[in-house]
Each structure stands twice: as C-alpha cells, then as structure tokens.
C-alpha cells in the first residue's frame, strides 16, 4: 500500500511545505478569504473536465487561473463592492461547479481522492511545488515590504500590483497541486489553517514560518497515514483538514499573542 501511495505522500509533503509558506504570506496580507475563493474557482473547471472526460487538473487549472486574474483585478479596487464581488464569485463558482459536475464525481471533486499518481503527474506536481517554494523564497523581501506597507514598498521600487498577481498565481498553483488529494473545497484548508495555528504561537517572523511548515507537515503526514492505513478512506483531504483544525484548537490553549 505504501509503495503504491508513496509518490503521492512525497508530493503531499512537499505540497505541505509550499502551503505553509504561502499560507503565512496570505495570512499577513489578510487575503485568506480571497484565497479561499480562488480555490473554489477550480470547481466549474473540474466539473466540466469530468463532464467531457478531460484531465481534471487541466479543467480545474484553467478556471482556477482565470479566476485568479479576476480576483487580482478586483483586488485593485477596494471597498464593499470588491468584497461583495468576491463573495458573489465564490457562490457562483460553487453553484456552477455543483451543477455541471456529474453526481458520481461531485464528492471526489469537492473532497479529493487518493489516486495512483502517474510518473508524469508526480514530476509535474513536484516541479510546481518546488517552483512555489523557490519563488516565495526569492520574493520574500518584496513580499515583506508590501505586507508592511504597499506605499513604502512602491517607494522602494517594488512593483506592488505585479507582485500581487505573482503571489496570487503562486497561491493558485499551490491549490492546483493540492486539489488532487485534498479536493477543491479543502485544498485551501492546508494553506489557511497551519498559518493561523502558527500565528497563535509566536510573534517572530522566522518562528511563524517554521511553525506553519511544521504544523502543515504534521497534519499531512498524520492525516495521510491515518486515511490510508487506519480508516481505509478513499480520500485523505478531510482527515488532514480535521487534524489541522484540531492543532489550531490546541494552539488556542497556548496563545502568545
């Protein structure tokens, strides 16, 4: 069993690392809601892919990146209208996704499954997560400046709008990798929850990122192994998300902020 699911577990662990990093930045940028919406934008694409028997990653990816661009455009504006628009996109994407997805594939697209991953799928997934990790590392200074103050970042020579788009695309790429085994509904959970947990425990930036990574890795490892060997589930997403949320609950007991 482990030999069959081994490559997927390795990919999941690297996804956990990327998700931890991306989540920390998303939390500090206060864009977790927009990020959550982005992950749901994959649903219509997944549904259409199942309907026309196309590779679901391609279908989900297409609407995911289209939606990312839409959210980026909306983020340039501020105020209630933007929040309302993002809320509407969220509801519409979920509704369209549910309507077009064949009933037998609906649960899989929402909550993921534990597929046997092809060597090409594994390789592409690894390239994607390593690209995310490397890019976030390269952009860390610009991202920190923008998180602190977009004005000061711009005055320092950072192209803030371009950086916002770059980050949203990295967020979407992370969601896309996680979508196969976490599902469209839960992919963003591993981005959001470990970062929120780590934030409860520390006020130091370096500790924050390390704790988010550790929480993310722990949730994925434990959730994956429990799903495969103990519960014999066909998906690991819900177990990972539940464990991750339990760790968040525990973090409230040791809140340092």
């Amino acid at each position: 069993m482990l030999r069959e699911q081994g490559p997927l577990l390795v990919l999941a662990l690297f996804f956990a690392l990327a998700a931890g990093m991306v989540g920390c930045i998303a939390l500090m940028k206060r864009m977790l809601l927009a990020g959550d919406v982005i992950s749901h934008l994959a649903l219509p694409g997944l549904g259409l892919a199942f309907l026309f028997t196309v590779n679901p990653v391609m279908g989900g990816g297409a609407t995911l990146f289209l939606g990312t661009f839409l959210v980026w455009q909306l983020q340039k504006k501020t105020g209630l209208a933007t929040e309302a628009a993002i809320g509407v996109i969220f509801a519409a994407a979920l509704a369209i996704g549910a309507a077009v997805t064949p009933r037998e594939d609906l649960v899989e697209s929402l909550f993921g499954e534990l597929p046997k991953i092809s060597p090409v799928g594994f390789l592409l997934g690894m390239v994607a997560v390593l690209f995310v990790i490397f890019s976030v590392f390269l952009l860390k200074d610009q991202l920190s400046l923008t998180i602190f103050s977009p004005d000061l970042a711009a005055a320092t020579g950072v192209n803030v709008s371009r950086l916002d788009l770059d980050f949203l695309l990295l967020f979407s790429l992370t969601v896309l990798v996680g979508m196969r085994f976490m599902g469209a509904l839960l992919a963003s959970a591993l981005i959001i929850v470990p970062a929120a947990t780590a934030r409860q425990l520390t006020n130091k930036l370096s500790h924050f990122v390390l704790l988010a990574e550790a929480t993310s890795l722990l949730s994925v490892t434990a959730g994956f192994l429990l799903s495969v060997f103990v519960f014999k589930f066909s998906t690991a997403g819900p177990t990972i998300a539940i464990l991750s949320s339990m760790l968040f609950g525990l973090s409230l007991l040791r809140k340092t902020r």
Partner: protein
Amino acid sequence: MTNPVLSVKDLSVTFGRRAIIRNLSFEVYEGDCVAIIGPNGAGKTVLLRALLHLIPYTGEILWSRNARLGYVPQKIAADRQLPFSARDLLAAKAGHLKLPSAELEQVSTELGLTNELLSASIGTLSGGQFQKLLIAFALLGQPNVLLFDEPTASLDELTEERIYEQLHSLQKDKSMTILLVSHDLSVVYRYANMVLCLSKGKPCMGPPKEILTPAMLQDLYAAPSQYYQHIHEHERLNHDSQDRRKC
C-alpha cells in the same frame, strides 16, 4: 544655478471629478529644505504621493538621474499585529536593494535604534520609536532626497523636537535635499529655506520670510494664523543673508 534635483511642470492630480492639484510647477535644488504647507485638503500628501509615482497624475515630474529617494509617510496603515520585528523590516529593504548588512547597522546606530529595539516586535514600539524606525527605513540605501509627510504627527513635543533635530543634523551632515510637509509653522520657519504653499488659489513658493507673512497666511488658511517664529540668535544674525542652503 545648478540643475534642479526635482522639476515639476503643470502637475495635476484628480480624484474622480475633483481636482486636488491643478497645474502646479516648481523646482527643487540640491540641499534645499522645502516645506510644503497649506490647509487640510490642499493636496500636500497627494503631492508627495504623486512625486513618488504612487498615484496617477498628469504633467511632468522629473527627478535628476542621481536622485535616490527616501520616504517617511504621514500615517502608515501597517498592521501593528504583524509578526515583524524592526530588524525584519529593515532587513527586507536591505535585501531588496541588495545592501550590505553593515549599512543596516550603521543607519540603526545613527538613529539610536538599539539591538533591543531592533529585535522588538513593531507592535510593541512606542509612537516615537516607530517613527524612528520609519526614518531609519527611509535612510537605508543612502538616499540624497528625503520626503517627509508630517514626520512627527501624533508625537509628543519632546520627541518631535528630537526627531527634527535629528533630521536637521542628517541634512546638514549629508547635504540632503528635503521635502517636508508640516502643519507646524514654527518648524517650517526654523528648518526650511523654501516654502511651497498649496491652496485653492494660486500656489506660491519662496523663502519663509516672504511666504509666512500674516497677509499670506490669512490668504492661505482663510483665517488669522498665529505661529511661533523660532529663530536662534546665530540664525537671526544671518537671517537676512540666508541663501537656499539654510537648513
């Protein structure tokens, strides 16, 4: 006269249909300390933001090729709950500009930012310490032009005095050019050698003694203004013969 560090021609900024700045032209020369004054809503902050290309505008803003800008904003919408220490913030700018770490230490020492303060979370810094951090942030990268938007707003008098003295000595030692937005006319009189006044009417620019007259202030603020004309004795002696390099 040397080439200007900054040349602004026919600058206009509009928000929606409302014109905030209309056809503004002026020049700033190396070593100038230009105070930008005007009533609330006159467009002082908007002008600084336009000069930094942070907002759309029409007209021409031309910085000299060797101008390196540092900016201290009036208010910063930074989330004080961020898990950033003062050092994280300065290191991010140093990293982005690829500055040697020695420069970070040097700027921190100049501004009296101790290791303890640098390690402190930004959320725990007092108003004065936070303002010092912003000034240190602006000074990283060895700027030769500093843009200050009411750098001491919401600070107590003593801290304000210290910060202005610090700016004054920095400007004197490094012959920096400064553009300073301030509501405090005594500060303007004390530190600026040129005053740019923005108002609904025609903007004007000139030395403080020409601009800060009761009649001009009445016209500018549409109300009688009182200010403390603070001139040190040694400055008083030289006041009449001041050139552009007063501050």
